[in-house]
């Protein structure tokens, strides 16, 4: 029996951890001390496995403690740290530095379309308000609930699987050009979460949600620019979900 695997090299897996210098160009907004937003630039030494979040931490912990951003889980599941990195919306904890072009400064800005409060921190309330308005909870007639277990077929479960992955990070909504100019638009995240219930066969509130999204600021505002789909860190087919909701409204009203 062979229990020994010939190691290809001594450092199997991660090779020698390279280090490199990175220039971080960060959009700052410190309303208590400076009226206007400005750019700060730092050049720091980082390692092969480091992410943009690590670079921000390094700056915050070792150089400038006033740098402010939200973060928690550090591996892409809590949705705290959506920001604009090199002009596109990403989670800072999911972007490896070495995957970026390090010959140029890496720009970091707050996500667009929500009021900036301080550095990377934006006011998330408008975003959550839209989420709450689509009634993001299962609406089912409890009197008809079976006493023990409610059944759902595996196929029915699969119909809305994609949209259950949402972590409400707002990367999609704040990358949508319609949302940038019209902050009243419900935005892709709210539609994704409506989709999650509209296509759940256990739910009976679909009509109400379709009615909500048939609004002036609802699904029809989407111009299929696909920015949301490209920004979603969970790989949700956001534009597809929106299209399905549009069709559901059409089907219901015609």
């Amino acid at each position, binding site marked *: 029996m062979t229990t020994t695997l010939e190691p290809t090299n001594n450092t*199997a897996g991660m090779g020698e951890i390279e280090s490199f210098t990175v220039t971080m160009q960060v959009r700052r907004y410190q309303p208590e001390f400076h009226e206007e937003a400005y750019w700060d630039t730092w050049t720091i030494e980082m390692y092969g496995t480091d992410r943009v979040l690590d670079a921000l931490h390094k700056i915050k912990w070792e150089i400038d403690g006033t740098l402010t951003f939200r973060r928690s889980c550090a591996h892409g599941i809590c949705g705290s740290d959506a920001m604009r990195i090199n002009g596109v919306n990403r989670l800072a904890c999911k972007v490896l530095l070495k995957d970026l072009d390090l010959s140029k400064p890496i720009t970091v800005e707050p996500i667009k379309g929500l009021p900036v409060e301080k550095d990377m921190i934006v006011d998330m309330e408008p975003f959550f308000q839209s989420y709450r308005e689509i009634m993001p909870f299962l609406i089912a007639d409890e009197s008809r609930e079976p006493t023990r277990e409610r059944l759902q077929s595996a196929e029915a479960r699969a119909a809305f699987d994609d949209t259950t992955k949402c972590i409400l990070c707002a990367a999609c909504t704040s990358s949508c050009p319609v949302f940038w100019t019209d902050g009243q638009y419900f935005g892709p995240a709210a539609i994704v979460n409506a989709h999650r219930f509209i296509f759940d066969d256990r739910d009976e509130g679909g009509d109400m949600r379709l009615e909500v999204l048939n609004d002036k600021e609802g699904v029809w505002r989407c111009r299929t620019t696909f920015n949301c789909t490209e920004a979603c860190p969970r790989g949700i087919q956001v534009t597809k979900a929106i299209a399905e909701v549009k069709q559901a409204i059409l089907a219901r009203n015609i």
Partner: protein
Amino acid sequence: MQVHKYDVVIVGAGGAGMRAAIESGQRARTAVLTKLYPTRSHTGAAQGGMCAALANVEEDNWEWHTFDTVKGGDYIVDQDAAEVMAKEAIDAVLDLEKMGLPFNRTPEGKIDQRRFGGHTRDHGKAPVRRACYAADRTGHMILQTLYQNCVKHNVEFYNEFYVLDLLMVDEEATREDGTTYTQKRVAGVVSYELATGELHIFQAKSVVFATGGAGKVFKTTSNAHTLTGDGMAIAYRHGIPLEDMEFIQFHPTGLAGLGILLSEAARGEGGILRNADGERFMERYAPTIKDLAPRDIVARSMANEVREGRGAGPNKDYVLLDLTHLEPEHIDAKLPDITEFARTYLGVEPYTEPVPVFPTCHYVMGGIPTDIEANVLQDNETRIPGLFAAGEVACVSVHGANRLGTNSLLDINVFGRRAGIYAAEYAKDADFVDLPENGEAFLVNQIESLRSAEGTEKVGELRAELQEVMDADMQVFRTEESIRRAIDKIEELRERYKNVAVQDKGKRYNLDLLEGLELGYLLDIAEAMSVAALHRPESRGGHYREDFPDRDDENWMVHSMLYRDENAETEGVKGIRFDTKDVVMTRYEPMERKY
């Protein structure tokens, strides 16, 4: 300063906090205070599943589940609590389903179940399918579903409100037998609004603590940056004991250097652990079940390989999880998330390269002692009226010395629910306790001195040193010597902490300041863990003393209880009192723990 009045105030909006809020919100005027937006809580990171003896795919019952929990916890599980949990597990899962949680389904449309480490049929005869799951996002779905139901029930959230202190008063009271004692009572909490830097007092009849774990005491951890043990430390500072703090679970397979979790499923699907020589070293440590031995055993074996110089990598500081012999299609089907983590974060292609892994701090078994009604205890049996705790912050204790996989998501649902119900019930008949005069003064002081300090120490540096020493000396192997080293270092850091300064002098969104306060909690918790570890001269579950490698049921079949006490001294550490508490036994007698 603003004062708010609620019947029930819940601190923390993870699984435990929101489960409590759903119950309490429908019965009493409830506010939920959370330092993160609810959906950012770390419950969302849980992958594997939540167990309940539904018997949807295989014969099963809650008594077997109780047994597995007791045995998994190396017999210092309180068996009454384990029974409650296993029994209520079934309703907990069905309730979640009714709230809309999209569980994976069997072909008949029932909730699907899968195997998980330590869960067996008929008292250890064979593995059983007990874990209900939603793909590999069970925790995410629980967190989302609970939040959705909070929205449905109009639960009032105060998002980004850090609770930094409890308001407690001491009263003289008389026991039934006529002796007098000091009864602690809770009047409310003091909270810091992140957006403005204002303090808010929340006066409440009932307060529920659900602030989660404290994994950030360690450097390598699967826990979030925000899991800094706030709730435990705040309670501890008010003279409430901490129970079983020496028991910390290290998950064997965290991504090396990062600690990001690769679920047990990786080995369940056939993954093999190898050292630098390519040897399948688990054959030496656990000849029969090899890589699928319990978490604590595998973690220790891995650490031993590294310690004895057989680690891989340039610094020889990790081992390798080898999946290369598995078909890529199989990996894609069963382990998509994990392999994505390896690719994203280490740039390793699991199809062709082994993944660097090392044990990562995962779960704190100990915490604030509670009874099965989630009521916090101020000593071995006296309740603090109106103060409740649930989730990872609490110690009921259902996890004993080692938590079984999937039992925590269950814990937060069962005891979160109980905490919500009992907190609301209590508030129904209770009166508000008068706020202590100037109760917030201590905190105001602390914040002001931290903000205005001109000290020379940096928060980030101290925290890094703390995490370094905890990783080195308090991890899977402990000896008196290593623990003392950790304690000495912690004492040094506590001294230096007095001289710490934050750079951000502003009021709005001052996360710099809060990291400073969190460091204070981390230091307290690290100290408690180390002192408790020093006090237990035996090896049990997650606590392994090389100088005492055997379990000692004769003397140590007890919970440890640690008190913050100005006048006490224990093992040379000032300000801490040590005590023990008996384990509740109902029907399972201790036996040797082998699988």
